[in-house]
């Protein structure tokens, strides 16, 4: 009890110190506003927003950097709803499901009401996500302290595999291929145990390994720029609205949708590498299935808009749980956050609670303030945000390109970062065109060193034996999940499982009859 009270005291202490510090508030509101802009503009994403802002936080302390980056993340995830509702083009993939019912509402002249609902639902979603971060992260981190190298290797591999399985827009194997390419990029450079140069081509610049931030900026930014400019993306006239109201009455009436969507968002967010877009779609489907009037979905249903926006913002908290407790990012923007945290000398994972005891509480306080800032900005500045939808992408994409270039370079003032960023970006573009997901590639780059070091360390301790995988419960569970994930994609095995299912089903049916 005393421990909980002590933690609560620390949390409110953090919250208070942030709320009364004008510099923190200015950074929080500016970053959240920037995030909303990034989310609102089709072609820009919250991941890219976090990536670009990372470069501006080099000179800040870790706490201030987190205020800025979480502000962009929260704002960017919410901002996508503007373009979805007003021009029927999702500002971000996370808001794609919102367009299905948000735009019909705008056509009916209810754009202001729809934006009011998404603003309040997004704030509630972020808040619920925050509660899960503060309550679950320490528990998982405590459990993870019992992990040995085998568990960490299997966890890293599971993260790459599951991310590839769930994010692939085409066949699942493409997600896994992207993950393996990411793993390959991660092994470039001198290895951490024996300092042996791997795939460096004799270039001294590659000996330290591939820098994560330029790879992330290139992989997420360059394909986006090429797609927008190549496909002649043109701004569309936005629907007009008078004013935005918080719509508390409608929110209260849809509380069951909000709670369910928040749980879906947190759950999906906590699976490594799965982003807000999947949370939005799953939540939309769940809301439709549980609705008394599913026929209204697609024609402007309030519960649809509320569900998708609650889920995608709750996903932020969900994504922070594996990031903070295990060092495994839960979504692409969280992967970028991980890169930023490492730059600021903070290594997320089980040791975070020991090295930086208050960090999780600080993040929680920042998330709460960010959801508050997002709500205020959404209510007050919506009309101004809408004006940016009129800016042609052909004007802002070159500016984004310059920011990406200077940002990658500024990391350690190395032009080589740019030499790396461009080919990574071009390869990522072709992969995107061929329907390979980029998230597993990025997760592979980030988790590669963890997989490499832990696999070898584990085998060193066990003298080359894989027996601990089968004798340690967590390792065995992870191994079985990995094996099931792989086997379930093999047609022959799938047929076998289907036959068993069929046999059981018919067996039951027979006994029933």
């Amino acid at each position, binding site marked *: 009890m005393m421990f909980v009270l002590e933690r609560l005291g620390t949390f409110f202490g953090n919250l208070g110190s942030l709320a009364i510090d004008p510099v923190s508030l200015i950074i929080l509101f500016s970053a959240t506003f920037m995030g909303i802009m990034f989310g609102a503009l089709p072609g820009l994403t919250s991941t890219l927003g976090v990536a670009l802002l990372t470069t501006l936080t080099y000179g800040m302390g870790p706490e201030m950097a987190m205020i800025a980056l979480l502000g962009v993340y929260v704002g960017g995830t919410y901002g996508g709803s503007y373009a979805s509702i007003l021009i029927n083009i999702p500002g971000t993939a996370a808001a794609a499901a919102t367009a299905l019912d948000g735009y019909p509402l705008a056509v009916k002249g209810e754009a202001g009401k729809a934006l009011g609902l998404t603003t309040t639902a997004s704030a509630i979603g972020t808040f619920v996500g925050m509660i899960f971060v503060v309550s679950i992260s320490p528990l998982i981190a405590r459990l993870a302290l019992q992990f040995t190298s085998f568990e960490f290797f299997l966890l890293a591999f599971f993260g790459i595999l599951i991310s590839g399985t769930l994010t692939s827009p085409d066949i699942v194997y493409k997600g896994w291929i992207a993950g393996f390419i990411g793993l390959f990029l991660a*092994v470039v450079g001198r290895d951490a145990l*024996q300092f042996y140069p791997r795939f460096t081509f004799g270039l001294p610049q590659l000996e330290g390994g591939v820098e994560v931030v330029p790879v992330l900026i290139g992989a997420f930014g360059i394909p986006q720029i090429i797609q927008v400019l190549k496909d002649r993306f043109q701004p569309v006239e936005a629907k007009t609205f008078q004013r935005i109201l918080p719509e508390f009455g409608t929110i209260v009436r849809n509380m069951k949708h909000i709670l369910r969507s928040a749980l879906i968002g947190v759950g999906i967010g906590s699976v490594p590498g799965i982003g807000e877009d999947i949370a939005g779609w799953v939540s939309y489907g769940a809301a439709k299935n549980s609705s008394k009037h599913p026929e209204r979905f697609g024609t402007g249903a309030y519960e649809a808009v509320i569900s998708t926006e609650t889920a995608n913002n709750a996903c932020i908290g969900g994504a922070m749980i594996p990031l903070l407790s295990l060092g495994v990012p839960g979504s692409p923007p969280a992967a970028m956050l991980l890169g930023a945290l490492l730059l600021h000398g903070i290594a997320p994972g089980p040791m975070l609670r020991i090295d930086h005891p208050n960090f999780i509480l600080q993040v929680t306080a920042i998330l709460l303030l960010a959801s508050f800032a997002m709500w205020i900005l959404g209510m007050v500045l919506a009309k101004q945000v809408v004006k940016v939808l009129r800016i042609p992408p052909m004007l802002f994409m070159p*500016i984004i390109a310059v920011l990406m270039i200077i940002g990658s370079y500024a990391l350690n003032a190395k*032009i080589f970062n*740019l030499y790396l960023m*461009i080919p990574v970006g071009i390869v990522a573009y072709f992969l995107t065109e061929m329907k390979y997901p980029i998230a597993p590639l990025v997760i592979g780059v980030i988790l590669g060193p963890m997989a490499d070091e832990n696999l070898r360390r584990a085998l060193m301790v066990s003298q080359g034996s894989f027996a601990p995988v089968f004798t340690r419960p967590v390792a065995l569970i992870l191994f079985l999940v990995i094996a099931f994930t792989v086997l379930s994609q093999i047609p022959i095995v799938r047929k076998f499982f289907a036959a068993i299912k069929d046999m059981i089903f018919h067996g039951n049916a027979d006994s029933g009859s």
Partner: protein
Amino acid sequence: MMDNQQLRRADFITSIILLLFSLWILGQALQMPMKDTYGGVTNVWYVSPALLPIFISVGLFALGVVLLVYSIKTGGAAYFFERVKVRGQGFPESFVRFGSILLAFLSLVYLDIPRIDFFLSILLFMLFFVSAFYYDDDHILHSLSIFYLAGQGIILVLFVTGIAAALQSVFKYSMDVVALLFFLVMLFYLRKMTRESADYQKKWRITLIVTIVTPAVIAPVFRYLLLVPLPKEGGIIELLNLIYYTIR
């Protein structure tokens, strides 16, 4: 995005590349110390730096085979060989647009940024990149891309042949002057192409503003606020330094 036929053809090509790539990784990994002594450490297979690369190569090879089989089954290989027989269809418009985007990025990163004043490099990049796509006019895109390619070609030749070094030994900022001249000529060329239409004239003014404001904001922010030394500090950045340190 590609249609299904293109996608399966791309899968066929990708699977071949993946198989070759995985074999190359394996070849490289097998050259890494497995049982030898490296840096005073006697290796055993399970601590070898080759362990994960071998795992990756085996994984990629297996996935490459799966993708190859899948692409053959879904007609990808047949589409590929069909396409090889049909030649001489010319480049589609999207290819030209893609080429122009690559031209902008490659010339900026590999040619201009390491050698020419950062401010001027960005100025050139912005003028080309914004105007090539903002007007949404294929004629402007084609003409400007050829013009920009020629200009960057001249800059490349000046550096490769050593003329740039000779000019810089006479006057330190001579390549900055060349870049500035290139910018001005491109600006007037663009003006000439867009003079006829009132809409284009408005776009020309907006292009010019965005082109100049971008480096004028970004360069000082990174140089003086974030204290990042810029990749190449030539004439313009040194002028900014002079102004900044005088008024500071």
